[in-house]
């Protein structure tokens, strides 16, 4: 039915179409962002975008900070089973109560966590604004701040900048007096764990020791472990038995020397 010449022509046509499809595919792949934005596709809700951009880093750094007594890089710690337990209360002497090194643990951890993600968080925020600009929005930002806040059962990274994104009749306002903020929310109960840690620190500061049993009696989902080390350090490991969230730290308060303390006394003379 088809003569040889026509068959060859068909094959050539198919090949050309295939090449065009491949080229289009490659172009789409390379320029998808621009194309999709031009058509209004892929413009995520700002919160979703920020979550996708920074949440993983926030989660990872929060875990590090929790495991290391509130520090990304502990300045002074006790190493136990490959974890660095920061000293939150410390004395280098025997027979003496320790002095508190971090009196406001919640505030410290908020600052530490924010500092650990600040650079990337601000980059993500700039990327968000850029996405909207590319989609044809006019983006205006006022003065404000970004910060991390620890709240009951959650951790929030909040960008409290007055931000207005306008395109035609459409207007999106965040921050300022709008009541809407761009934020990333982690479900983590470090707030509660820090509350327990602060109570333990106060007990260590006043009495040189803390009774762990009562925390587990009062708070059913809590596990509080205490490990006294030979040189006088005490390690505390507070964890939620349901979700595995934990907070660990070290103390050294009212330590006793081995034996009669004579060797230590002579060493100090």
């Amino acid at each position, binding site marked *: 039915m088809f003569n040889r010449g026509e068959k060859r022509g068909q094959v050539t046509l198919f090949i050309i179409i295939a090449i065009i499809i491949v080229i289009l595919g490659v172009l789409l792949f390379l320029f998808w962002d621009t194309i999709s934005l031009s058509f209004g596709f892929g413009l995520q809700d700002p919160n979703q975008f920020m979550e996708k951009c920074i949440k993983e880093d926030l989660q990872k750094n929060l875990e590090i900070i929790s495991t290391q007594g509130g520090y990304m890089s502990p*300045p*002074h710690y006790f190493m136990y089973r490959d974890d660095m337990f920061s*000293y939150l*209360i*410390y*004395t*280098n*002497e*025997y*027979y*003496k*109560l*320790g*002095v*508190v*090194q*971090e*009196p*406001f643990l*919640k*505030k*410290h951890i908020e600052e530490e966590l924010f500092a650990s993600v600040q650079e990337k968080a601000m980059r993500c925020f700039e990327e968000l604004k850029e996405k909207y600009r590319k989609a044809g929005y006019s983006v205006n930002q006022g003065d404000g701040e970004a910060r991390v806040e620890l*709240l*009951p059962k959650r951790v929030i990274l909040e960008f409290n900048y007055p931000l207005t994104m306008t395109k035609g009749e459409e207007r999106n306002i965040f921050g300022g007096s709008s009541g809407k903020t761009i934020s990333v929310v982690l479900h983590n109960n470090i707030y509660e764990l820090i509350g327990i840690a*602060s109570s333990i*620190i*106060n007990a260590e*500061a*006043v009495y040189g020791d803390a*009774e*762990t*049993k*009562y925390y*587990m*009696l*009062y708070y*059913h989902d809590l*596990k509080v*472990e*205490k*490990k*006294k*080390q*030979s040189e*006088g350090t005490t390690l505390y490991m507070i964890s939620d*038995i349901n979700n595995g969230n934990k907070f660990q730290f070290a103390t050294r308060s009212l*330590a*006793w*020397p*081995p*034996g*009669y*303390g*004579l*060797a*230590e*006394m*002579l*060493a*100090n003379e």
Partner: protein
Amino acid sequence: MNKKIILIFGMFFLVSIILTSGVFAQSVSWCCEKLLGIDQSAGMWCQNAPQSSCSPLYRTLSTSCEASDYCKPGTCIEQAEGICTANTPKRVCDEKGGYWREEDMDQLPQCQLGCCFIGDQVAFVTQTRCGSLASEYGLQINFRADINNELECIMSSSPKVRGACAYDANGVRDCEMLTKKECNDLQAGAIYENVMFHEGFLCSAPELNTICDPRGGTTCVEGKDEVYFMDTCGNIANVYDADKVDTLAYWTYLTGAVDNVEVECDVVEGDATNTIRRTCGNCDYYSGSTCTKKKFGDDIGTIAYGDYYCRSLDCTEGFDTDRSGVIESDEKNYKHGESWCVISGPDSAYKNNLITVKNGVIIENEILGTAEIQSGDENGVGAGETKTNIREDKNLNRGSNAYEEWKEILQEKFNLPGTRHYRALCFNGEVLIEPCADFRQEICMESATDDFSNAACKLNMWQNCMEQTDLKHCEDRTSRDCVWLPITSQKEEWDKGDRILVADNEAHVCVPAFGPGFATWKEENDAALICARASGDCTTIVKRWGLEMKDGKSAPKRIASGEECIRRGEKLFGVDKGTGEWRESKSMMTWFLGDCGEKKNYMNKYGADLGSMFGAEREPWRSDLY
């Protein structure tokens, strides 16, 4: 008084003086605002240390930190949040943006804790903190300063009254279990129509005519221990009771709302049978049970209704004391919340020799008796009394069986190098092990009420044992942890004109029940200093017979001099290392001095060095002396 007793008491007195001076004389001359850390700014704040340990970037003072103005400890307050932290140096408080006060926390009104009611929940915090929390939740502040105890605060939380909030939505009569306020808010939201609140009713109540029907399964509820029924809309109903699955009233009213609707199955205890667990969801954390979903492998059998049951929180499977992955066998089951003492001891495997201590003494052997006697004690002692003659009744006199058993315990089981006390706790079905302070500076004390034991690590008060001179003061458990020990001593007697030494069975000395341990692996440690005090030489004079003139006739005369290390009548030759009372006396000293003496460690091994030993050397006869 017998020479030996004088010597022993003198040694103890000297040691106690050293101890006392050791406690109070430990002081370092400089207050470092910051110690040197991994870099010049990284060390700890406000420590007393040698000047060379202070960071050059910060201040130093040639006095203790307590006397300095910048490192003096006090209370640090974060005024906005209402957080108070004790024993914080002024410098640290200023650095962190706090407000520093010299007074202790309990002297500052703004640091007093009370009960803060936030919605359904409570928090034991300061009043300022309560206000901060309330504003976070958008609620009114409700602070009770009269509740100054955390347990009382937790127990005083009372959930708000709930009921069925029925409304029309999408052409049907839907329902949710809400508080009255929440239901009113739903009405005010104007999303649903015909919103009505029915206090004390469940959504499955037939008269409400909602789409929610009974028997929608069971579930756990966050913040609660019990297993709850659900209706077909997923609303939480009453506590699960298999006998009430088909009881109309139980699906109509909330328990407590009407007289004849109550939770009738008893609270499920930790040791409840599986039959009870399968049919009753009345779990209680303090009784040892909590709600859980049945998983594959759970040994509960088929639950009468639903997939949830009351899991036991008791500890029944033994525990792994040294985290080796091997569970030591322990036949006793421990209740949730119970705690008890464990001491590491020797045997072929440390983990197989866990011995419990009650009331500060070893219960494995009743020799030491008890100084803490409960009322109604079978020995006829009133509450709080100490009956000292219990010990005497046990006849801990030297040579008695009781004494020999006690020696064996002290010498071969406890107070060995490496022995340590631990507190074990049972919580949530898991045994947690808490070591007491090392070197036996803390010991574990345990008491029991109705077979429920409570234990705690406490300071080992051995320091002034040696100063006590009678049984009553020695074994006063409120002041010290000591034992009134009969010691091997000798007294002089005359036998046929010769001075001889015989055993004195009446002498006693007050010694630590658990002597302190030494860090023998350190270059500078107390072992050499202290153990040397138990060292000594005992010169044994081999008896010789000479002749003397007595009543005009020559007669044999026994020549003896110095201390006798041998039993009367024995001779010391060859490889004999010394036997008898002198050696025993020296050994006994080492038991309570600390990690001294002829001992194996807690792993039943001898140390790397020779350590303590008894040896004998024979010297030529000194005829010039005798």
